[in-house]
């Protein structure tokens, strides 16, 4: 079978597991292309009006895959819970239903199962068994495939913990062992990105914040690189935990980075009209006020003009530079303009 995987939402968390599972069963995977204008247009025109851009983009990816003739089924898992007593955003928990109602004619091509990834491997095995049976695979094969999937996920987590972004993980999915060993080069400045992985890593939707920062020789860390154990104690700064694992990761991970001496500033990335984002942004604001580390919020929507974003990022980097005592002028690559051929010094 040829299975389409939309490159959106939980793709940016569980892709390694899915990759391991499906390829070990011998199914061919078709990833949708990274988000582009066409995908956004598809998504916006096939989704309801008042959901966040991230879910709209997901619609676009699913439609893109459904339109492909060589894709038999599109995998839309329902990730219900990732931690005890924590559930995902209702829109994400309802994804398979949303897709089936948005693409009624192709509803039977949506491949789904409900995942509880919180209580060890058993519920994961159950969910994958459901999927494997729909694909006509034997229980035995499914069992070993799940093991492979979980192994991939563990390797991916290891890569993240060693400082590689999830984009690197996707790129090196076939050889994560090597990626783990590859050292991450240290830059003069480090900026932490706090937010849901799908907002942080969807480079088209967020105006490619990662590359913009890298152009200024800024190193990147993100909240999904952290082991929850290092930030769980930040619960005491919140009245109680948020109800969603990813929101907690963004909030507490952000706080951890605010405290971290290796991080110069924190940028939170979220999509416009995401309710829970407004809460963790406020939490980060309050915490940064106590500690005095710069925090900036980038809220993304359908816009593609990025003058405003460039201004904010440049100003944020200026702020960090001044804080480190480097001043506003003269560095080898001080401007974004270098790239555009505006301001190139002879070497």
């Amino acid at each position, binding site marked *: 079978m040829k299975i389409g995987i939309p490159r959106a939402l939980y793709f940016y968390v569980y892709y390694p597991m899915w990759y391991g599972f499906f390829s070990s069963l011998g199914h061919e995977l078709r990833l949708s292309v990274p988000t582009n204008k066409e995908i956004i247009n598809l998504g916006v025109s096939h989704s309801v009006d008042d959901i966040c851009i991230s879910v709209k983009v997901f619609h676009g990816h699913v439609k893109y895959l459904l339109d492909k003739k060589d894709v038999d089924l599109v995998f839309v898992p329902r990730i219900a819970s990732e931690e005890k007593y924590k559930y995902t955003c209702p829109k994400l928990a309802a994804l398979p239903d949303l897709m089936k109602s948005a693409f009624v004619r192709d509803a039977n091509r949506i491949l789904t199962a409900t995942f509880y990834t919180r209580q060890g491997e058993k519920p994961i095995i159950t969910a994958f068994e459901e999927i494997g049976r729909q694909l006509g695979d034997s229980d035995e094969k499914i069992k070993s495939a799940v093991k492979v999937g979980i192994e991939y996920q563990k390797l991916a987590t290891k890569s993240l913990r060693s400082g590689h972004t999830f984009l690197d993980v996707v790129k090196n999915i076939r050889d994560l062992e090597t990626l783990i060993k590859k050292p991450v080069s240290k830059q003069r400045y480090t900026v932490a990105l706090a937010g849901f992985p799908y907002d942080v890593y969807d480079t088209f939707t967020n105006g490619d914040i990662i590359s913009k920062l890298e152009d200024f020789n800024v190193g990147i860390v993100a909240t999904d690189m952290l082991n929850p154990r290092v930030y769980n104690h930040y619960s005491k700064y919140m009245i109680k935990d948020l109800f969603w694992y990813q929101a907690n990761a963004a909030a507490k991970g952000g706080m951890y980075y605010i405290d971290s001496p290796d991080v110069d500033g924190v940028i939170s990335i979220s999509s416009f009209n995401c309710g829970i984002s407004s809460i963790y942004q406020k939490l980060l604001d309050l915490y940064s006020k106590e500690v005095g580390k710069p925090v900036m919020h980038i809220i993304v929507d359908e816009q593609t003009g990025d003058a*405003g974003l460039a201004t904010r990022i440049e100003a944020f980097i200026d702020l960090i530079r*001044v804080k480190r005592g480097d001043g*506003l*002028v*003269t560095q080898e690559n001080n401007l974004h303009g270098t*790239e555009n051929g505006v301001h190139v010094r002879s070497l």
Partner: protein
Amino acid sequence: MSKQVALGIDVGSVTTKVIFVDENDEIVEGLYIRTKGNPIDTIKSGMIEAYNVITSKFGDIEVIAVGTTGSGRQLAGVVVGADIIKNEISAHAYAAIHEVPDVSTIFEIGGQDSKIIFIRNGAVTDFAMNTVCAAGTGSFLDHQAERIGIDIEKFGDYSLRATNPVRIAGRCTVFAESDMIHKQQMGATPEDIVAGLSESLVRNYLNNLARGKELLPKFVFQGGVSENIGIVKAFENAVGTEVIVPKNNKLMGAWGVAMLAKREVEITGQKTNFKGFKVTELEHKTRVFYCDGCANNCEVYEVIENGETIAYWGDRCGKWSNRLTSKVRKNERVDRKSEIINSER
């Protein structure tokens, strides 16, 4: 010896500012012009005008550094040959700190965006820009002044004459406008409406941008809208203390970037990239095309000087802009080489 000056250009969405600063970092000449549809023409005519004024004042001048800022900073930077291209937040803050060293909060409202900048100990510690809409910026005031039929320059005086400002919804320009029309049909005077608008604008600004952050004096208010005495008064009412409007309130961005350009050239010790006032004679064209390299169909902007492309931007992957970097670098090297040869002669 000819007078040495640094040039600062701030290409905003509504107005363009061209200024010269002297060796003491003082503005010796400043121009404030509407950007209209064509920023390149505006920059050029501004430069000619500024050049004429300054040469009639000081005779011969020598431009030692050039900086550009504002939303059109890239474009201005390639056209004139800038030494530094700086975002407007840093440029504005730099000038404000220069003018009022112990400033803590800067309000800046321009044509299409508004910013708040927090300064502690002479360094920017935080900033915010308006996010999704342009409510309460210069363009909106312009539009409303036109609709009511009063001169934008007199807007401030109107609101000072108000006896009983009406309350206007400031959250969104569409609602603000319908609110204003409603109040005017109910019989409110233009003075009260204008004053109400100023208050709502300030309220909206502080709610949106300051968002519970600590507002400490001294306050500096700059940008085109700071010309409006009614808004200044509304700010003073809101924060409960004096709000300083610096003497170059409309030119702060250009001033800041001119000073930064001077610092840049001083530190690097390199000759300015400034192409000279002859750029006004060169022909500049811009072209927008859709790249069909991938499904993104990026809008790519191309700047053409005398038939030769000098800049690309807008491509997300760098397919076009990278292509050029090497070329520009080559040209620049050739330039520098020929300069050395010429100077050796």
